[in-house]
């Protein structure tokens, strides 16, 4: 259900949440856990993200970012706030 690992540029407006800046507001297009810097397996990472409410169509907004390398980030997913590292947020494709 996720694309091949090299296709990170499906659509010009689509970006990975892990690259987005503070203040970014968008919608989740899909999850693609194959090419992230996370230590979790793609399967496990995707499962956890879904468990925390990162599913297609959800509205996301980056509210805050950490001090060192702007990591981690606090993301508003619909109406809850989740803190996560950018390496895991790479799996979330947003527009």
């Amino acid at each position, binding site marked *: *259900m996720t694309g091949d690992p090299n296709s990170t540029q499906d659509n010009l407006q689509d970006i990975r949440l892990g690259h987005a800046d503070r203040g970014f507001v968008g919608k989740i297009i899909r999850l693609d856990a194959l090419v992230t810097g*996370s*230590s*979790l397996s793609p*399967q496990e*990472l*995707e*499962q*956890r*993200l*879904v*468990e*925390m*409410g990162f*599913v*297609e*169509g959800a509205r996301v907004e980056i*509210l*805050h*970012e*950490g*001090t*060192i*390398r*702007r*990591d*981690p980030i*606090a993301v508003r997913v*619909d*109406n*809850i*706030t*989740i*803190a*996560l*590292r950018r*390496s*895991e947020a790479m799996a979330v494709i947003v527009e």
Partner: protein
Amino acid sequence: MTTASLRLALVGAPNTGKTSLFNSLTGSRQKVANYPGVTVERKSGGFVTPEGRSVTVLDLPGTYSLRGRSPDEEITRDIVLGRFDGEAVPDLVLCVADATNLRLTLRLVLELKRVGRPMMLVLNMIDIARRRGVTIDLERMSQELGLPIVTSVAVRKGGVDELLKRTDEFLARSHEAAASQWTTPTIADLKAAQREADRIIAAAVTLPTKPDTLTNRIDSVVLHPVGGLVILAVILFVMFQAVFTWAQPAMELLSDGFSALGQLIHDVMPEGWGLLQSFLQNGLISGVGSVIVFLPQIIIIFLFILLLEDFGYMARAAFLMDRIMGGAGLHGRAFIPLLSSFACAIPGIMATRVIDNRRDRLTTILIAPLMTCSARIPVYTLIISAFVPATTVWGFVNLQGLVMFGLYAAGITSALTVSAIAKFFLWRDHAPAPFMLELPDYKMPRLKSIAIGVFTRAKMFLYRAGTTILSMMVLIWFLASFPTAPAGAEGPAINYSFAAMIGHALEPLLRPIGFNWQIAVALIPGMAAREVAVAALGTVYSIEGGKEAADQIGQVLAQKWTLATALSLLVWYIFAPQCASTLAVIRRETGGAKWMVVTFIYMLALAYVASFLTFNLAQALGLH
């Protein structure tokens, strides 16, 4: 309670108020706080419903799904599925949801439905939802889910009345439990369930046009990349200053009280009752009393921690510290267990159950005892007040508080260093685990729950003083008083006692780090609990000083020890594994003696080396 009593289980996403409900139903006082992952054990309690049914209710760790990816979530899964040893499957599952935040719990509800147990949905925190203008069409939601729904306010009097009533109604009917169709959900299952949950929410819930922005406004200050770290440092700094300055008057009062009591006993006791008098004055008052004096400090530190926990700051602190912790090879969720270890390493080690990866969990358990627990406060304070002048530096900082802050910082730094070293040597190939944590909305700390929390801690402290510490003191008093000095002996009688023999036997081992025999005597019973060392020193010096030793222990130490010895003992207490209960919990939580032995040895080695360096450096600098 009979076997016929009905079994309820509280299940739900983390931080939805399950424990608050449990407390309110059963009248218990289990720990409640505003961050995910507070409850990590199964807790059982009983109550009788208005119609007289006796019910057993289980409080369970919060979970986002029944997958069970960490030890705490496994408990919940096993209970719900009836796989838990010695625990029958619940007759009724109360699924608890935070009414302001339904998405994740509703998905869990859909998953729970597949298990087939009779179930009721409890929309808790309905007070907050109403205040924000969230309206929920309960009938519609109940129809969509095919479940009875009840609202509750777990933290308000009468807030669970409806839940009780509906539970009675529910239990009056007979319910057929369906066979479980639960299988570990796949990603596609989860997504489908989330879509269904979102659909139900869209149909039944109207959100206010103006969402809650208070949390957001506070966060933009508290989580500011620079300002946030400054605030965190200031909070910790104020906390340790307060431990010294605010507690001072109350401590003086207590300590004067104990001195007066000792004097009174001395004056009132008839001659010839010397032994009993010595026991009361030296063993009880100088020993146990010297520990009780620290009660105000314990209260203040817990007050701070409880306020931060209830307000919702803990998860924010974890956010701010994540990179630093990750740099030291720690799991993102290690922060809260480590912060809880400031109170006591035991709940801290228990709290590591929220960590899913075994290696990450082990590392956190290994370093948790290095965080400065409240039992070290008496030791630190005693030595600091005896050797550090209470002057003000830089215009507003209490020097004693500053030293205390330094000791805490030393504990934290050493914990991070040990973790980094462990990672480098043991688990080099192990990539850092991810950090994913819900940041709950801030809540106004509730006076009553804070008061109960502080009271419980104070009671525990006094209970320990009255049991562990008291029994150790009786032993020490005995060892320090017998055998009595032979007739015509010179010097204090204690020099002829068992205590002196033991102390002198150990002294050669401890001399390189600057400890005298009196400290050696205090260290052994100090294994039972760190505060015992303070009490032991109190008793030993008080017996040694004879009848006129009405001096407070701090003044005695200032005369008898060099600064080098005092510093060495402070450093010893940063590292030394001086707590039998912590070691026992490590053994239980890691499932074997191996890691307990590892912890003991590494901490002891660190303590000895660090004290050795401190003592010799201090001597070389001429600090006598």
